[in-house]
């Protein structure tokens, strides 16, 4: 009586283990392929200007909106501005409504693709939610270009 029960328990464990392996294997395969296709790399304006950023791949750029660069194309919803890390600037084109806290001279992060003419077409533009919050990408871009001058770390409020 004891032996078959032990064997049944073992078989059950094996079945569960097998199922778990299949599940984890599928998840691992899915994750790896998805990483390959969908990982969005962050580039600084300097990367873009020095042709270190690939063309026609989804990427994220960050920096400050260059002072005086914002223009609205008459008769359309298109907006143009330049994102700068104070070393180089990238022209950005965006169709749509800019976030409420979008300002010239302030930090911005844009998702989109770079065309061969050097213009970045944004599908999404993100600004802060909070007056005192600097997107980490913007801080990163300024640090890499050596123009980081903040005396306090970003978001030192509260």
């Amino acid at each position, binding site marked *: 009586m004891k032996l078959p*029960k032990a064997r*049944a*328990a073992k078989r*059950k464990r094996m*079945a*569960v283990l097998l*199922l*778990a392996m299949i*599940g*984890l294997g*599928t*998840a691992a395969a*899915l*994750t790896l*392929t*998805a*990483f390959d*296709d*969908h*990982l*969005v*790399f*962050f580039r600084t304006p300097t990367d873009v200007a020095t042709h270190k950023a690939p063309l026609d791949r989804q990427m*994220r750029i960050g920096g400050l909106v260059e002072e005086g660069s*914002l*223009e*609205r194309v*008459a*008769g*359309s*919803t298109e907006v143009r501005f330049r994102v700068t890390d104070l070393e180089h600037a990238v022209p950005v084109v965006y*169709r*749509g*409504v*800019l976030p*409420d*806290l*979008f*300002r*010239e001279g302030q930090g911005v992060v844009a*998702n989109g693709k770079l065309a061969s003419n050097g213009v970045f077409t944004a599908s999404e533009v*993100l600004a802060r*939610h*909070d*007056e*005192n*919050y600097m*997107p*980490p*990408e913007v801080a*990163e871009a300024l640090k890499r270009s050596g123009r980081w001058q903040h005396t306090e*770390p970003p*978001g*030192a*409020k*509260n």
Partner: protein
Amino acid sequence: MAPELGHIALILALCVALIQSVLPLAGAQARDPALMATAKPAAYAQFFLVALAFGCLIYSFVVSDFTVENVVRNSHSAKPMLYKVSGAWGNHEGSMVLWALILALFGAAVAAFGRNLPPGLKARTLSIQAMIGVAFLAFIVFTSNPFNRVFPPPPDGQDLNPLLQDPGLAFHPPLLYLGYVGFSIVFAFAMAALIEGRVDAAWARWVRPWTLAAWSALTGGIALGSWWAYYELGWGGWWFWDPVENASFMPWLVGAALLHSAIVAEKRDALKTWTILLAILAFALSLVGTFLVRSGILTSVHAFAVDPKRGVFILAILIIAVGGSLALYAWRAPMLKAGGLFQPISREGGLVLNNLLLGTATATVFIGTLYPLFLEAIGGAKVSVGPPFFNATFVPLMVPLLIAVSFGPMMGWKRAELGAVFQRLWVALALSLGVILLTLAVDKTRHVLAALAMGLAAWLIFGALIEWAERVKLFRAPLATVWSRAVNLPRAAWGMTIAHAGLGLMVLGITGSTAWQTEVIRLVRAGDAFDVAGYSFVFKGTQRQEGPNFIATRAVFEVYKNERLYAVMTPEKRLFPAAGSTTTEASIRTNLLADLYATIGDPEGAGQPGAAGPPAFLTQAGQDVAWTARIYHNPLVPWVWLGALVMMIGAGVSLTDRRHRVGAPQRLPQAALPTAAE
């Protein structure tokens, strides 16, 4: 006066929690009833003290006491009363006090309602709960004191972030915390069981109501947050796979797995060590969520300014809690006796499949959320993981799970015949196929995947209904019999039917809003007319509006359907002078089948929105200029949240099940096994 009282109450609460985390546990180890009995008054005292502190904080906000730094930073005398109150927890310090309050509330609830708990288990559980309390109260007292004074007091406050001045967000944190912190009690139960070295059906039955309550609150919290993002951010979407969203979603997924594995532990005395592990993981992920949101390490559009130093403290709590509990688990879990056997094709097997898929899905969300942080920490490239990643990993794992949901309850315990289960489900299968064909016939976009997803939603809803119909013998017995069977059906069974149907409704909403959303972005001048998804919009122009603590420009759209006025939509852009920021207020018109969603942007030619002086959108209000408008038609989107609400109701109904209230569970596993139910 109130701030000092609150501060002292917090410090006293910390002392009480320290005592509570030592004495009852020591008493349980030494089998000393007097020491164990200290747990109950200590739990009450801790709750009373934290409640007093929280009350003092709310009072300071209500009377706009600008000698308190926290009030200065997050309130304003002109702010509406609701947001003065909710401002108390709309900031870091206050939200941590709320966290501690809910922690103490759950402790006191176990002390009050756990009358039928064995004294040893109760004492140990309350001690563990108090240890968590010590950690968070120390965090508040030493790094995040909400009662710091400022001198000299400023004449007025800096106002709460306007995005947070919203009824949805006023109640989002309390619900979310009820969920997060609710898992702490389940965690404490798991730790107590490991210390005792005993997990049985009675234990599982004690744990289940707390899991249900926590999971239900978390469902509500996440749904409310997503609803807020939908109408307040003005982006037309409701879920962005943002790290902060994922942080609350992971404990929800593991909590759902725990909910199901606890059934097996209760009814079949199996999967016990697994259930304990899930209880640990659910709370660990709640702590991870708190750490991610409160430490400021996230690259997130949702992230608000936070202090990185505090992250280290929460990280320490996280490491001690997770490391300690997993070590205890590794040491004690092998001593737990394995329970009932079952075949792979059985109710237990179905629930194991549920757990595997939910666990794996949690793992993919975890990797997607933390991989960018990990890569950055080791000095790698700066990357972000967006919705496409989660669509490619999470969604494929959900499809088999959703298919399995309707099979599970049809299968018998221990062993089942798949063929027989199919026979009972053929009506649901036929109806789902019908829905797929109907969708393909009606849908002009011929979206095949969306049609299949609609079929999946129908499969969930009809599967749940048919299971219920079989139990009450609908159409097979006289109505009187059906009625009495329905009345006598265990509330847990009702809860399952409702929750599974709610999941189906949610899938319906997700599918509709993802597959058939229409977006129109265009410039509009007063008098312009245009069509969106069969509705005719006429832009009537803009006007200036004054609110209690904001100035707004309101755009007016008349919407016609079949030549008749259907709605007047009035999206706004608001300037909050005290906080110095602007928000977009979407105007939403729903008929429960679809939402019309309108937002207004900036006027044409506005060179620099919000530069020195009043922003262009205010100076141009009422002028004859072109504005950027963004209009969405979101089919079925209300069902995302209504589905979540139905799931919450299901969990709530299950919570009222008789067996959670009457019939003190016996520690003898045989007596604890129910015979009639299910």
